[in-house]
């Protein structure tokens, strides 16, 4: 073993307990990390990347156990160490940055207390504190290094008083406070908007460089990992697919699976349009109570085509969908569908109105009743709108399942027994069952892995070709927009910034906001972030 190897995991096997049995999650993976090196762990969900990342710290989640293998951290075998021994390392020499910062902070304590808590404990314990005398002063320096606004006073705030992106930075400061040898980042930017993500990524990368900390960066977003990691390891079904230096991996991935991950972003629809307008929103204003969220919004949607509505969270794009569906009656303006104005409130619409506009949600988990089977979920619109029942209904449900590339064996499954992509497919089938003319898709792919996303987008395109369905596609992801849309509407702060054909919107010159949105989408180029920061396009517009 050479001196600069920090972690050496050999032949790791991890099992998880479910359904009264132990199932293998990680099947013999090796991982070697040098001091100061950043490794990206990527793979689809269920690949075991988080489990492996946590195992690097000698930790197994409840319901999991490390059954085989050695985890050598600085010569100490963590797989055999007692919890007490590992505690001397956790929070001092190795730290963890969780996916959801909002859930990881204790809402009852100020940020500063939480930032320095583990460093304080470590200083009192057997580890010396790296010559830092004043932890508070050090935390302020870390806040400053992470480009948090008002580093002197932000520590006095409570978690709910700062934004999601800021909270994620504070958590990075917390992880950095004891000056660990290793930080494990578990999807730290997945829950953030693209424009926020850029800033957080840059801050993380800088601070890891500055203190020469080794890091394991877990994510399913390749473009993100390309910015952060020196080495990338691809996992699938608990096994290693391949490992290589970032540039080498991006330039020439060896395995077919890795290549398939790469190719997702290349999907692009040929844009088309027509004059047959199916839906028109005319000068709509809408408000939640006194808070006005839509200002004079007008959108036109051509029949059988896809209009993508893009913008970051809070831009009013989901509110626009709520106005169309009637969940939020507008305070001014109207929605015209097939040449007829739609009644503003849901209660005044008749079943035909409702049947023709269907909706698919972002979180397929919460969009399906967990106590109903797939057959009940898809069957209900058939029964409700089309009056099918008994054998006819079941036949149609099976047909719909085949349309979404699933089969009969799914009929009696509950939503919790489906993977993320399958859940979203069942939601699509439920929308399809109503035989709608238009489907509103609210961020339908943003919670999914790349390869699953591609499958869903392909499916939506296929269904559009077959049934001439119109999509109103709400998203913040430009790659998705490229893949599926004919027209684009850019929204910001409740107003329509730009509207037009895809090619017009995506080619310069852009209005300022569109420019920021487009520039913030990570690209598969390890130098993308560096170049972006150089051009300073982001720094100027950071709030």
């Amino acid at each position, binding site marked *: 073993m050479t001196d600069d190897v920090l972690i050496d995991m050999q032949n790791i096997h991890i099992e998880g307990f479910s359904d009264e049995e132990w199932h293998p999650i990680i099947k013999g993976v090796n991982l070697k990390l040098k001091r100061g090196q950043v490794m990206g762990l990527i793979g689809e969900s269920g690949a075991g990347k988080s489990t492996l990342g946590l195992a690097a710290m000698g930790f197994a989640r409840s319901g999991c156990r490390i059954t085989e293998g050695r985890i050598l951290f600085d010569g100490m075998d963590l797989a055999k160490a007692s919890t007490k021994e590992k505690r001397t390392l956790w929070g001092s020499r190795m730290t963890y940055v969780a996916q959801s910062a909002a859930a990881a902070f204790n809402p009852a304590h100020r940020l500063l207390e939480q930032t320095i808590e583990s460093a304080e404990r470590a200083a009192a314990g057997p580890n010396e504190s790296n010559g830092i005398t004043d932890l508070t002063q050090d935390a302020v320096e870390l806040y400053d290094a992470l480009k948090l606004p008002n580093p002197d006073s932000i520590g006095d705030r409570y978690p709910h008083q700062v934004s999601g992106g800021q909270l994620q930075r504070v958590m990075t400061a917390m992880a950095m406070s004891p000056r660990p040898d290793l930080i494990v980042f578990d999807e730290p930017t997945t829950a953030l908007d693209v424009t926020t993500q850029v800033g957080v990524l840059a801050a993380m990368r800088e601070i890891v460089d500055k203190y020469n900390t080794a890091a394991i960066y877990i994510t399913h977003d390749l473009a993100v990992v390309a910015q952060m990691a020196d080495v990338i390891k691809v996992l699938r079904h608990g096994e290693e697919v391949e490992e290589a230096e970032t540039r080498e991996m991006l330039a020439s991935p060896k395995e077919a699976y890795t290549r398939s991950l790469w190719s997702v972003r290349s999907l692009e629809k040929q844009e088309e349009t027509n004059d047959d307008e199916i839906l028109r929103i005319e000068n709509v204003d809408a408000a939640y109570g006194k808070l006005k969220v839509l200002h004079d919004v007008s959108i036109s949607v051509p029949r059988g085509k896809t209009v993508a509505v893009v913008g970051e969270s809070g831009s009013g794009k989901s509110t626009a969908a709520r106005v169309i569906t009637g969940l939020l009656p507008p305070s001014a303006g109207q929605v015209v569908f097939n040449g007829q104005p739609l009644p503003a409130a849901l209660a005044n619409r008749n079943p035909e109105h409702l049947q023709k506009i269907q909706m698919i949600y972002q979180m397929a988990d919460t969009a399906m*009743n967990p106590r109903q089977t797939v057959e009940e979920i898809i069957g209900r619109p058939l029964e409700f709108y089309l009056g099918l029942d008994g054998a006819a209904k079941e036949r149609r449900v099976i047909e719909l399942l085949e349309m979404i590339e699933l089969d009969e064996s799914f009929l009696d499954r509950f939503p919790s027994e489906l*993977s993320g992509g399958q859940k979203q*497919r069942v939601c699509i089938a439920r929308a399809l069952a*109503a035989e709608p003319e238009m489907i509103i898709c609210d961020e339908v792919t943003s919670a999914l892995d790349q390869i699953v996303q591609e499958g869903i987008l392909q499916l939506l395109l296929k269904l559009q070709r077959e049934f001439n369905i119109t999509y109103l596609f709400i998203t913040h992801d430009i790659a998705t927009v490229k893949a599926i849309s004919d027209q684009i509407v850019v929204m910001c702060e409740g107003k329509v910034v730009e509207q037009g054909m895809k090619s017009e919107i995506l080619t310069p010159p852009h209005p300022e906001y569109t420019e920021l949105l487009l520039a913030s989408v990570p690209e598969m180029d390890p130098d993308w972030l560096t170049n972006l920061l150089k051009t300073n396009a982001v720094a100027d517009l950071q709030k």
Partner: protein
Amino acid sequence: MNNSEEASSGYSAAAEVGLKRKRRTRFERMRIGLGKAPLSAWFGMIVVSAYVIVALFAPLFAPFGEADIFPTPYAPWGGEHFFGTDQIGRDILTRMIYGARNTMGIALVTTFLSFLIGGTLGLVAAISRGWVDQLLSRFVDVLMAIPSLIFALMLLSIFGSTISSLIIIIAVLDSTRVFRLTRSVAVNVVVMDYVEAARLRGEKLGWIMRREILPNIMPPLIAEFGLRFSFVFLTIAALSFLGVGIQPPTADWGSMVRENASLIQFAKYDMKAAMTPLLPAAAIALLTVAVNFIVDWFLHQTSGLRDDG
């Protein structure tokens, strides 16, 4: 486009790994669940089933008729009357056994009724929100502001102590608590996308209540049912003890405690006879403890389930 088609050729949606559970029959699942039940839950289940059997087959177990009167009042334990007789010469054991039937039966009906009223209104309030919710919630607040036992006493003296008015009054007063619980758990479910999806589909209130929300709030409601059952049971016993509950000659544990309370003074002379009023009291206590053991176990189970929900 070529590239991506090549990628998707190796990918099939149906083959994606979902966490498919084994199909188990209800019996198998029950066996696994029972195998993990702690000792206290077993104790609770055995006691409750014993009570239920006694209540169901009361005429078979009881040596005499419910209202049969024998010549010796306050007969000692043993002999013809195992637990002796009461102040007018009725067999205590017989009345204990019939008491199980009456007290538990009435408590069960009352609890069901209170869940029907409170649960339905709670769901309506949670789904409708707005003025319906305000009206119902404030009305419930008013009812809850009055101490329930005193309120029940008052209402019973107005409407008379018949069994039906007893059931209705306690059910209504108790339904306020059920309303609160149902409303608060249902509010969390109402905001789910699948409820919104059902609304967008144009589903009626009844469907959303029964099919979308109710199945998802069952565990806390069932747990509450067990707890409420104990409370109702205690309320009836208390009312009977105060003389406005179940009226003689119907046997009931609460009134039996009161009727024989004076026997406690004979502790110096006949220890056994002095314990007579404690028998129905002990029966009440044991059932309450047993029900709560089961409820505790059930709550623990379902909160564990909610994690992976």
